[in-house]
């Protein structure tokens, strides 16, 4: 920025810029920040409505309680899946071949989580909790449903990564990109569980 002295008329040719974070990972990180704000919006809306509930009744009268215990167990499956994916990353760094099995375990645990959430929804619907029955039901399906859509999307990305790794064509940037998104899905869930279920 500062003016150079007159004597120094030729400067050495600068070297090429080395990105601190690969572009793919950076792109998905920015996307994750937006997603965090999206879930913050949902959670703060939920908190406001909950704090204004008639007679401080939450869940409102006539609405079923959410299955706190079963979902806690299910949450554990999701968290373990995230931990296994961390091991996948380190295994991949040593030898891409050895990353395939932990990646598969991570995907399987993720599928268990999503499947069990689906079973839970069917049970709750039969107990009379729908999006229209109250703001409580509306927020439950909206928030947990948004998370489920993200989980399914991230699982599809992980399966795509597994498919590439079985062909030996998975790069570390690709694995980093899809893992970053799965970590987001895993880490946002405890917050949602705490806010919506407890």
């Amino acid at each position, binding site marked *: 920025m500062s003016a150079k*002295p007159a004597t120094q008329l*030729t400067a050495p040719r600068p070297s090429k810029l080395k990105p601190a974070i690969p572009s793919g990972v*950076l*792109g998905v990180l920015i996307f994750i920040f*937006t997603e965090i704000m999206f879930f913050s919006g949902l959670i703060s*809306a939920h908190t*406001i409505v909950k704090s204004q509930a008639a007679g401080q009744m939450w869940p409102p009268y006539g609405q079923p309680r959410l299955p706190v215990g079963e979902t806690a167990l299910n949450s554990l499956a999701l968290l373990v899946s995230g931990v296994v994916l961390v091991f996948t990353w380190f295994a991949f760094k040593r030898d891409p071949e050895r990353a395939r099995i932990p990646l598969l375990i991570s995907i399987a645990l993720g599928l268990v989580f999503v499947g069990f959430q689906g079973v839970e929804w069917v049970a709750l619907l039969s107990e009379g909790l729908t999006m229209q029955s109250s703001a*409580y039901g509306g927020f439950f399906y*909206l928030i947990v449903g948004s998370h489920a859509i993200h989980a399914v999307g991230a699982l599809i990305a992980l399966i795509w990564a597994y498919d590439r790794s079985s062909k030996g064509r998975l790069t570390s940037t690709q694995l980093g990109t899809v893992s970053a998104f799965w970590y987001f899905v895993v880490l946002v869930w405890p917050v949602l569980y705490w806010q919506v279920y407890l």
Partner: protein
Amino acid sequence: MADTLVEVQKQEIHGQDHEHHDQGFVSKYIFSTDHKIIGMQYMFTGMLMAVIGGYMAYVFRMQLAFPGISVPGFGQVSPGEYNSLITNHGSIMIFWVAMPVLIAAFGNFLIPLMIGADDMVFPRINRLSFQVFFISSVVLLISLFVEGGGFGGAWTSYPPLSANADYNQTQLGASLWLIAVALEFVAFLLGGINFITTLMNSRAPGMKAYDIPMVCWMIVIASILFMLSVGPLLAGAVMLLFDQTLNTGFYDPARGGDPILWQHLFWFFGHPEVYVVLLPAIGITVEVMATFSRKKLFGYKLVLYTAVATGVLSFFVWAHHQFIAGIDPRMANVFTVTTLLISVPIAEMLFVMIATLYGGSITLTTPMLWALSFLAEFLIGGVTGIFLGASGADIYFHDTYFVLAHFHYTFFPIAIIGTFCAFTYWFPKMFGKMMNETLGKIHFWGTIIPFNFIFIPLFVLGMGGQHRRIYNFEHFPEIAGPEYFQLREIATIALLIMLAFQAVFFFNVVMSWWKGEDAGKNPWKANTLEWTTDSPAPHGNWPVEDLPTVYRGPYEYGHPDREEDYWPQNLPG
């Protein structure tokens, strides 16, 4: 066998040829991944939408000044149509004109050229971004013609009016409007990810953080603000869409919901959005001012840090839109303080512009005139904002024409003056031809003078207590005195004059593009990298082996040790 091998090798070599092969018309102009073409697509779509938005303004201003007349080109305006027109005028001008032109069009066109990259980091995501945006524009235009007409609940779309078709009478129009807005946000999310990543990772060798031209910084800071603020609004939009279509009760107090909730979610986005469009306009203006006063930008780092500070503060001012919505008065006090605080960094940027001009060798070209008028007009918009930011005064001014005049004095300089400033400045780089200066100046004065005649009367009307959402003032005899009608007529006639002068602009663009003087590489003798390549820049921007290298900051004008008064960023000495 040998022949096929050679074929394969040839193909491989061709594949490595950096995509500089000839493209057909469709792949070059419709489904292009070239950032310059995508920028143009955004710009022309945005300008088309601006014409539609301007036409809407013409129709409802005619109705306001001459209630009940058959408006030429439209016919009688019914109350429902009036509501739909003002709603869609606002939505179009903000979401389909200001954002696509200022951020998407100039961001796409300028960022890679100014930082010396051959294209965006994710060209295909960039193309997807425009396609989603284009679909959103089509959905919005369709929403105007469905059964029941276009949505008429104002661009802020407050529930319960917007949530329930029994109130707004536009079952389909309201949902389509909301879907269009949500799609438009998705488009800018994709675009914003590209802008930020490209600026971070694709800069020319030697370009350090403080060598980046200010307009690129501003567009990227605006994109970051957009990314951080849009999430809550998308959440709120999903809830509103469910209220409209699935009959949920998120905003229905009778069923445990809260209508004020939408206002919070909307304005948490809506206020940073003001700075999302303001910052690129300021970036464009300082770029033009530095070039045409042949002086270094005053306080480069100051401007940059101020922009960041503005961005941070803009997240803590949203409730000043809700002072009379029934929020806690103690909270209103806090938001009054933050709102008055945010005028400090903005004032600082205007002072920086003045300091850049001070003592410079100013040339009054058309882009420079637009830049100077930005300074003058935005100042009026900013100063009148102080009255509205103070919660006590706002109780009286809320929802009057004063508010309307205030935000048009901010948005017009941002969206219209900023666009014209950038368009006239970078026209040579876009099309390789110079614009006609005489026609440019006629268009400038024909736009600026009527603009003030439109909105200064509206300030007076607002201070007289005229409410901004009244369809026909003759229905309210106690506030429909003749002096008020005269002011409304002045505003409407000034609008007609201003719209007529836009023809000069379109004529100028077509004539200059067709028969204009050749621009050469660097007609303005500017320093930044986009002026080192051909005009218009080829696919890939520079020859692959000859991408530029940066040795200094972008504003080295009038250096005492050099014969020329400019010093391009890419010259070693």
